[in-house]
């Protein structure tokens, strides 16, 4: 059972993926489905991490898979509302280098 819901919205010519819950191994399925929906028209993507409660190395592997797909398809990815801890994780894994950092306010 995934502990994550990933919903897709479209605004300002970009696709917004809102994550709610845990990004671990089981996040692969909902995240990939949301990613496919978000990128179907080749739009750039914002991922909202404001309601992400947990992230582990398996979840990082899933995110890296999405970023690899973004690279191939020329999709720009931004990360929104990362809290300090997750931002630290993104920085030490250097995922932060591949995403624009945003806040929602």
């Amino acid at each position, binding site marked *: 059972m995934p*502990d994550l819901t990933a919903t897709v919205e479209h605004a300002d010519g970009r696709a917004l993926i809102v994550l709610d819950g*845990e990004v*671990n*191994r*089981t996040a692969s399925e909902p995240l990939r489905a949301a990613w496919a929906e978000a990128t179907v028209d080749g739009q750039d993507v914002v991922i909202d991490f404001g309601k992400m409660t*947990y*992230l*582990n*190395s*398996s979840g*990082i*592997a*899933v995110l*890296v*898979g999405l*970023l*690899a797909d973004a*690279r191939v398809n020329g999709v720009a990815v931004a990360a929104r509302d990362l809290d300090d*801890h997750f931002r*630290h*994780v993104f920085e*030490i*894994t*250097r*995922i932060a*280098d*591949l995403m624009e950092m945003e806040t929602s306010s």
Partner: protein
Amino acid sequence: MKWRRRRTDEDSPSPGRPSPRVVDPVDIPEGDPALAVFASASGPVDLDEIDLESPALERMREAGVQLVVPLVAQGELIGLLNLGHRLSEQPYSTDDRRLLASLASQAAPALRVAQLVREQEQEARQRERVEAELRVATLIQQNFLPRDVQAPTGWQIDAFYRPAREVGGDFYDVLDLPDGRVGLVVGDVTDKGVPAALVMASTRSVLRAAAQRIMDPGKVLERVNDQLVPDIPDAMFATCLYGVLDPTDGTFRFANAGHNLPSILVDGEVTEPRATGMPLGMLPGSSYEEVEVTIPPGGTVLLYSDALPEAHDSDGRMLGFAGVRDAVSSSDGQDLVGHLLRRLEAFTGPDWEQEDDLTFVVMQRSTGREHVSDDPGGGSVVLRIEAPSIPDTERQVAEQVVEAASAAGLPDDQRRRLETAVAEAVMNAMEHGNGFQEDVPVRVAVRRDPGALTVTVEDAGLAGAVPTDVDRPDLEAKIRGEQPTRGWGLFLAESMVDEVRTSHDPSGNTTELIVRLEEDDA
């Protein structure tokens, strides 16, 4: 299909005919020459036509056997059909023999299958019994070993226990005694498995009760011995060292029922004070000499079980007591348990199969130079848990660890980092160490020492070694699809705490996560 034997009047013998009767079974001992004859026969054999010295043939003739139909499956003789005289008193005809041969050729494979099934069922039952017994022994033992070892202020007490595959009878205990004194127990019951675990459990209970009422360790052992002697099974006994520490002045008064001598390390010098006494449960009325030593600041007492001196290297040489002394004296006095485990692994090599339980209890008096907090968790294990190896459950374990670590002084801003580090180490242990075998637990302990918190994550090493390469994963290569996207765990853990140590030995992998704490002197 069912075979039914109907007994009606029609079955009654006609007058003048011999009664049908069942030929008594005859056991044929292995090696009887008749077996070779039957095994090589191509069909039914007339007993009268065999000219052979054979006790089995004698008995078969006495039992009234006339014709023997060997049952042979895959070239192996698996049974005999023994027939007496025909009811008609006529000799067996060629048709009879053909029928019997055909019957035998069909019955033999079926009989062989039945035999194999029965053998396998017996083996499976035997295996289940052995495994159930092992589980029971492990349960008894682990339930009786203390989980949280509380050290008095100014002292650090560290216990290490690693069961052998076939659980031995090691035990240790740390007792809170009146007047703030602390009782230390290390023992070893002869024998293994459930009997040893039961004797260990009763020894421990009797000792616990006696220690609360009697102050002198020698008298405590006398009492325990007298209570054990009538109950302990023949040829079983327990060695046991019991000592009482007064933490205020460092006196350690102990008595020894045939156990290894305590090893005391002060400024790099090792002494092994000797107190004599018979093992527990051997002789009624045994008495136990008491010896008192004083542990100065910085001094360490090591109590250990036989698995340490009896460990052997790849050439079969034992470590021995001299080896234990060398190992202890080469320690810098810090983390003696870790030091001994490293020395042991270096001596035995990685392929050593630990034949007996391995137990250490280490008690160290602080030098008095470092700050010793009044924190009751100071210098001791504050949490010990075992978690089944189930995917996606690492977070619960990490949360428990963080709770215990917070209570033991982990600053709030370190909580989530430690949670991530523990989650990664536990995931590695569950997956790479235990292969996600649910019934094989990952053992996690949190220890608070002056200036540091250490989380130890241990697995059984069934699926191999956990990764130890902590180089930064190559994100670019992963993005370009040249490397798998996985492989972040240990790197992540390493980035979240001050130090990560990994080690591997025959009993499994150990990962230590260390967070240094600023001690406040307030």
